[in-house]
């Protein structure tokens, strides 16, 4: 059965037009690698090309004027690129090129050395400014004659990569190495649209074609290596050893090497799991493996198919190299476990592991363009992370007094965003004042949860199953996803997702008034004379309550919503409103006074921007919790005072 599944997977893969054969040697003392790379590329499009652009991402760290360095200000996820000490800088230097066996080094130029680089049409016009130079994250090889459709080219590149001190996902710390984006990588040729090859931006990630990789790593004998692909061969020579990894149908290759790595293994269905962790993290192994399995199960459910490769490596970098943590590569990701003292109720490491593993679906197999559509990997994957975490753990933060799931985190993050952007932008188009993370991660998370609530889980899962089945091992675009949403969810669902992506439209329902009062006794005249009130009347009369609720739709979507009134005796009245007309009044009578009027009580609209105005509570029920909260804080202040006044 397993064999059959694998045969089916392989049969469903497109023929690969790209092949990397890389052979490098790690020099730990020089914090660098050097070696050769042979790229065989076939032009499978119907358009000829006369250039071959290479990504040289590591050059983002070669000076403080690269696009990445300027946009980031030398900071990434709280880590700093030490600009005072150039020893910690990194680079990828191409030292020789053979094109179909002939020397082509003379035709090679770094993008910032080409006077009219914009004319190559690689980058978008708004992407390059003349003030940001030199940036050498792209290198161009000029072909002597255009490569026609169907033709192949063989490039043999000799290169040297110096790792930066761990920064922005890659680098070294002491003898630890995390190698991501470490080799010259061919850009993606899109036929008539030309090459898709962007500069390395602070916010952006990567985009590459599926390929066959064979990578030979020569490292010191005592090093432990983890890498993308399957270990095919290991040979020992004196003080070094050479490990050869190979794999089909991935679009990147990453590896790590350290003489302190410890290895734990496990299995999930057909997948052999490897965890590389630093000494001292033995107590975290179980948590990390459990999280990885939670990810494998959760994503299989969401996407409808199991992770197809037979191996997966999770890297838990030492905290001194935390900058290498929380990053995805095919078949290998890095997690982050900040302290062995982290309580079990704080599932941040688990969340990071699930998220990074999940990128093997949303980035790895659904290889959308991360430069141009970050929401397609980060946004969908953040939703999927929250989904998988909820399925396995329920909460990301789980204490008796504080419970928080991924959707809570996303809603709180998104609600704080007040800027002008929306998710459907290229990474560098977001305002530098912030918004990229919030819009690429948080907004899609809660809007997809809303879509799930609106459509029902079954139909919603059908969307993701179809999207995955149709576009795995391809480069889906936003329209590909939207067409699947429309096909399965209908026009309203498609409109909802499209507006989420390309507008600032929000959902905000509010209860603006709720009153409950006893129906006044009828007062009037009979024959223009007052009706006398008898004692009997007074005794027998049991007056009802008149209740009024006014709800408003302060958002931009006109969707139906439920309004519920709860009475003091526990009875409920439920109303439906189509959400049109701006506002609506509900008036009704009850035997018991109304205590709460709430709109969208089941939180179908998980992306509602403000929960506070979703209800009016005439008799608060959470008073004792407030007292407890105030009491806890006050006692902590008392305790702090006691500690600071110990010696006074």
């Amino acid at each position, binding site marked *: 059965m397993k064999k059959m599944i694998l045969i089916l997977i392989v049969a469903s893969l497109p023929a690969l037009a790209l092949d990397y054969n890389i052979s490098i040697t790690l020099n730990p003392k020089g914090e660098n690698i050097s070696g050769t790379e042979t790229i065989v590329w076939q032009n499978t499009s119907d358009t000829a090309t006369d250039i071959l652009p290479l990504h040289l991402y590591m050059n983002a760290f070669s000076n403080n004027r690269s696009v990445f360095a300027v946009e980031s200000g030398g900071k990434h996820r709280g880590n700093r690129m030490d600009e005072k000490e150039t020893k910690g800088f990194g680079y990828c230097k191409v030292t020789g090129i053979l094109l179909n066996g002939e020397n082509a080094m003379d035709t090679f130029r770094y993008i910032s050395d080409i006077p009219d680089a914009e004319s190559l049409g690689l980058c978008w016009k708004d992407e390059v400014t003349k003030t940001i130079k030199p940036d050498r994250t792209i290198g161009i090889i000029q072909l002597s004659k255009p490569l026609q459709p169907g033709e192949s080219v063989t490039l043999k590149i000799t290169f040297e990569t110096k790792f930066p001190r761990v920064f922005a996902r890659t680098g070294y710390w002491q003898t630890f190495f995390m190698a991501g984006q470490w080799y010259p990588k061919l850009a993606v040729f899109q036929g008539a649209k030309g090459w898709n090859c962007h500069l390395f931006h602070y916010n952006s990630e990567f985009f590459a074609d599926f390929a066959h990789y064979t990578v030979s790593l020569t490292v010191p004998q005592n090093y432990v290596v983890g890498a993308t692909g399957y270990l095919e061969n290991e040979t020992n020579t004196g003080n070094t050893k050479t490990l050869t990894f190979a794999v089909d149908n991935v679009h990147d290759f990453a590896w790590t090497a350290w003489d302190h790595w410890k290895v734990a293994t496990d299995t999930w269905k057909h997948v052999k799991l490897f965890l590389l962790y630093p000494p001292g993290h033995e107590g975290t192994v179980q948590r990390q493996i459990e999280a990885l399995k939670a990810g494998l199960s959760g994503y299989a459910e969401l996407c409808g198919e199991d992770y197809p490769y037979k191996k997966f490596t999770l890297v838990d970098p030492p905290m001194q190299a935390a900058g290498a943590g929380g990053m995805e590569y095919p078949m290998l990701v890095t997690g982050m476990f900040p302290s062995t003292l982290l309580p079990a109720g704080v599932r941040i490491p688990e969340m990071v592991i699930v998220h990074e593993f999940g990128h093997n679906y949303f980035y790895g197999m659904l290889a959308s363009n991360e430069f141009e559509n970050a929401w397609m990997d980060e946004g969908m994957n953040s939703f999927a992370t929250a989904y998988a975490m909820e399925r396995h753990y329920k909460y990301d933060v789980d204490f008796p007094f504080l419970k928080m799931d991924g959707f809570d985190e996303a809603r709180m993050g998104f609600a704080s965003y007040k800027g002008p952007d929306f998710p459907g932008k290229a990474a560098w188009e977001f305002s530098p004042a912030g918004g990229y993370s919030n819009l690429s991660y948080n907004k899609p998370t809660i809007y997809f949860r809303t879509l799930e609530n609106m459509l029902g889980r079954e139909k919603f899962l059908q969307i993701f199953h179809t999207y995955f089945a149709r576009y795995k091992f391809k480069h889906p675009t936003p329209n590909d996803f939207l067409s699947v949403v429309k096909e399965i969810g209908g026009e309203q669902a498609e409109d909802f997702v499209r507006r989420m992506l390309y507008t600032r439209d929000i959902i905000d329902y509010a209860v603006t008034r709720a009153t409950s009062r006893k129906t006044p006794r009828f007062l009037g005249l009979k024959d223009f004379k007052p009706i006398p009130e008898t004692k009997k009347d007074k005794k027998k009369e049991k007056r009802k309550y008149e209740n009024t609720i006014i709800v408003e739709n302060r958002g931009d979507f006109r969707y139906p919503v439920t309004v519920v009134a709860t009475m003091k005796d526990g009875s409920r009245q439920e109303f439906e409103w189509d959400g049109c007309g701006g506002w609506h009044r509900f008036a009704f009578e009850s035997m018991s006074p109304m205590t709460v009027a709430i709109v969208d009580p089941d939180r179908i609209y998980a992306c509602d921007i403000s929960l506070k105005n979703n209800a009016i509570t005439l008799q608060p029920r959470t008073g004792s919790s407030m007292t407890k909260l105030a009491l806890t804080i*006050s006692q902590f202040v008392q305790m702090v005072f006691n500690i600071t006044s110990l010696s006074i």
Partner: protein
Amino acid sequence: MQTLKSVLKEHKLVTILYLQELALFLIVFIPLAVWFHSQISRNYFGTTLSVDFLFEVLTKGGAPVVAALFIALILFLFILFRIYLMGGIFDALMGKYSGLPRLMSEGATNFFRFWLLFMVYSVPLLILSGIVGKFTGYLASHSPNQAMPVIMMIANHTTAILLLVLFSFWHTTARFKTLVNRRIKFSLSIQGKPFLWFAWYQLISVTFLVVFAGLSVILLTRAGTLLMIAGFLLMQIGLYGRNLFKLASYKLLS
């Protein structure tokens, strides 16, 4: 034990010390409780309390900064007042408690000398703790073994507590000498029995505070109102007892 009994006789001093702590509690508790209650009246969070409350209400605008500044200011003023109060309490411990007005007037007389002594002993303590912290931090950040930060943290905290005990003993001895001599008198001498008492009291205090920090979270957040009140009372009784031992350990020096 005799010392403890003699302090027990002068329970008024312990009560004065405790009342200051109760006042601190009330000064923080009342505005916070009023603010929290006002934030749930007539809205969603009056019905359902979720983590969204923290974000949508408590951390909105400048509220966290204002609250933190308020609490920091209150703490600072209370520490100053504690130094002031101790001037009178030390005087009463050496002689006899003769009423609050006398205690307050002695507090005023001794305040600046006590303040100076506090600075003289706390600044080197902070510097030394900082050096220890830097050293243990260096070891923690350079070891591939990820257990090292935990080991170094324990080493750092243990050293800090031991330093605290040592410095606060010298500080307390100096306060007595200052009162006896009516001028600033530093101390580096250690007397065996009082020091042991003092060390014992400080270690118990620290343990109590740390344990209660965890316990109070469980009691105050997980349980119902009765346990919440029990937790509060336990804390207050503990603080009263702690003040009793504190003064008893001071009394040994007189």
